[in-house]
């Protein structure tokens, strides 16, 4: 009988203590940490999106997020707090720690293209300051397109189309100075102004366009273009295409394609379309990105991008109509 009890004891140990210790270990991992551990599940929006999609922390609190991806590859970013995880592989858990230094309501988002609804995968982190329960009032300046009263939903085709694609490299050799505010003026408007000016009569149309391309890139700088390129690849190319032609794989069946006004161009914007791009000022393009496409499937980026990020993406978009951008 003694050996029966021994055998039974071993079995009980293996069947009860072993599983219990597994769950115990997981609980210990959570509770033994000096940081506040928050488990976050990242699923594609059709599988539930972020869970939780609202995270509440305090200013100065040491927070550790444990992010799991049960379905496909996801990324995580709280742009305002400079917290990011570039890759969460399915079945893996990625941890990221941070201490929020200011109170506020900050959006977070998935940074990897996880499904056709990827751009809906967003959440909010509330950082409160126990000393100051009320959130600080947001400082808000209306975006430039509103100040300029640009109707960003209307078409603004260019009146003048360059004979060839303008080249900054050719423009650089002209030694031609172009003073223009590209944020408020479209390249087309800048061209019209130069063409009307007798001082530029010595230059043909193509040369003026080349000079505009050069001036534009000089103005925005290589760093901005490189930052824009990174963001474009991460956030835009899936729909607008790696070549900017609007033919990206994720843009093929957007909801807006069927419900949009019949007179509007269908599908993601084509940044290689000279008429549309040269007729648009930077303010207009920035407004589009900032506000989004209102039901077309184009998400708003105003809550995730800083102003500088928005302008840098606009600068990169110009490389689809102007050749030879400066290398960083």
């Amino acid at each position, binding site marked *: *009988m003694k*050996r*029966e009890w021994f*055998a*039974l004891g*071993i*079995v009980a140990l*293996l*069947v009860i203590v*072993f*599983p219990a210790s*597994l769950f115990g*270990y*997981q609980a210990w*991992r959570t509770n033994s940490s000096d940081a506040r551990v928050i488990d976050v599940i990242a699923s594609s929006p059709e599988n539930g999106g972020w869970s939780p999609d609202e995270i509440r922390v305090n200013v100065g609190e040491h927070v550790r997020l*444990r992010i*799991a*991806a*049960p*379905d496909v590859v996801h990324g995580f970013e709280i742009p305002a707090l400079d917290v990011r995880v570039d890759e969460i592989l*399915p*079945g*893996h*858990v*990625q*941890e990221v720690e941070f201490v929020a230094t200011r109170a506020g309501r900050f959006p977070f988002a998935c940074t990897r293209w996880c499904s056709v609804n990827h751009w809906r995968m967003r959440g909010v982190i509330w950082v409160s300051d126990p000393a100051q329960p009320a959130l600080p009032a947001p400082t808000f300046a209306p975006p430039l397109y509103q100040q300029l009263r640009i109707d960003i939903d209307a078409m603004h085709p260019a009146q003048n189309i360059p004979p060839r694609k303008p080249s900054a490299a050719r423009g650089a050799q002209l030694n031609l100075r172009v003073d223009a505010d590209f944020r408020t003026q479209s390249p087309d408007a800048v061209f019209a102004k130069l063409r009307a000016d007798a001082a530029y009569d010595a230059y043909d149309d193509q040369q003026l366009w080349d000079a505009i391309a050069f001036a534009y890139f000089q103005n925005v700088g290589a760093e901005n273009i490189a930052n824009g390129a990174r963001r474009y690849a991460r956030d835009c190319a899936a729909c607008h295409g790696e070549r900017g032609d609007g033919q990206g794989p994720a843009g093929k069946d957007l909801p807006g394609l069927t419900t949009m006004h019949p007179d509007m161009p269908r599908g993601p914007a084509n940044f290689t379309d000279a008429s549309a791009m040269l007729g648009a000022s930077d303010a207009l393009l920035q407004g589009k990105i900032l506000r989004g496409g209102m039901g077309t499937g184009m998400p708003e980026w105003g809550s995730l991008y800083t102003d500088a990020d928005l302008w840098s993406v606009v600068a990169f978009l110009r490389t689809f109509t102007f050749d030879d951008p400066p290398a960083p």
Partner: protein
Amino acid sequence: MNSPRFELTRIPLFKRVVTSRWVPWLFMALTLPIFLLAILTGLFGTPAGSRNFGIIFVWIVWWALVILVMVPFAGRLWCAICPIPAPGEWLQRRALIQPRAGGKLFTLGWKWSPRLNNIWLQNISFLAVALFSAVILTTPFVSALVLLAFAALALGVSLLFERRVFCRYLCPVGGFIGLYAQLAPVEVRVKDAALCRTHTDKTCYRGSDDGYGCPWMVFPAALDKNTYCGLCSECLKTCPLDNMGVFLRVPGKDLQTTKGRRLDEAYKAFIMLTCALAYSIVLLGPWAALKETAYAVGAPAWFVYAIIFLAANLAIVPGIFLACAWLTRKISLHKFSLRRTFTEYAYVLAPLGLAAWAAFSLSFVLINFSYAWQVLSDPFGWGWDLFGTANWTWTPYFAGLQSFLQIPILLAGLIAAIGMALRTAHTQGVPSRAALPIVAFCAAFTMVLLWLYV
């Protein structure tokens, strides 16, 4: 009949191991927590199958162990260490080690219906799992529910009926392990049949103070094939004359005779053959629509898939074989009924089927085995790293060499099948040429698999 065999139980250490009452308990005590972990990770772990212990250790590691190692080399060895019947068996015996006086079992003592004294229920349970395999193999939660259902069924049945009714009649895995165990080079058999005739107590079947009567409901004294011998070693313990032994033998010896071939076992062979082919096409082929249909359980297209899948298993492949058997019967001048011709030749498919399963399994096992290292360190996909292997990357092993392993395996299966087909003809006393239609069937099947793999 007197093919050479070597008695392993003559080796003192081996004999001590197989006659120890601790050894079966020890194996089950080891496999039980692993089984439990597979269920827990399935229920509570990550839904990403490739990072879930339950999926990887059941469908990659365990499966590879069973079909590539245990069944071909040791027959039903898995059945001897399987944790699923363990709780029920321990409850039946109310003992883990020590045998009850006279091998008494505590159950309601229900009688299993003689009409179900065959493996049709196993054929059905295997087909049921096979039909949903695209989901079961890839979804940890569903996989865990299936394992739980097996365990619950085994436990429940063991309280109602005596002995291992679940293993013998219900377990979806047990059916094909039994069929293919006949090919194994290991057997438990009587040492000297004459001695058994002098022993009227039949303790090997009825049990004794030293152990339980055959849990598999086989009469060990008359054992002549591995199909239903679970290698549990009770008969070695209950034989007072020390007349039971474990032997190394000629592989496939059980299939040299056509005695006692049955339609239910024949159908097992068809189901296994068809499933190996179906999986090779559906799961491993380049046709995505097929995979998606097999996965979309409940969708209209899935019902079409289900009907085709079941028809292939139960009617189409057996039907083609029936046509071959019809020809065979014609060639052998109608010596036997069509049913008998069909049934007896169907056993030829055992080596062919085992080879097909080995070839099919090799491809996905080698490709995905590296997941095993990851889930060892992080069984639930909770971000653990117990052994530092949690973030090892997926590395397909021998990725370009699979077909060079598959070709010789399939060829060996075919050659064994041809040998068996001719032997079946000879045993029936008909000319060799009668086996030609069956040989053509086997060759055609092998070539289809080669076309799929190579």
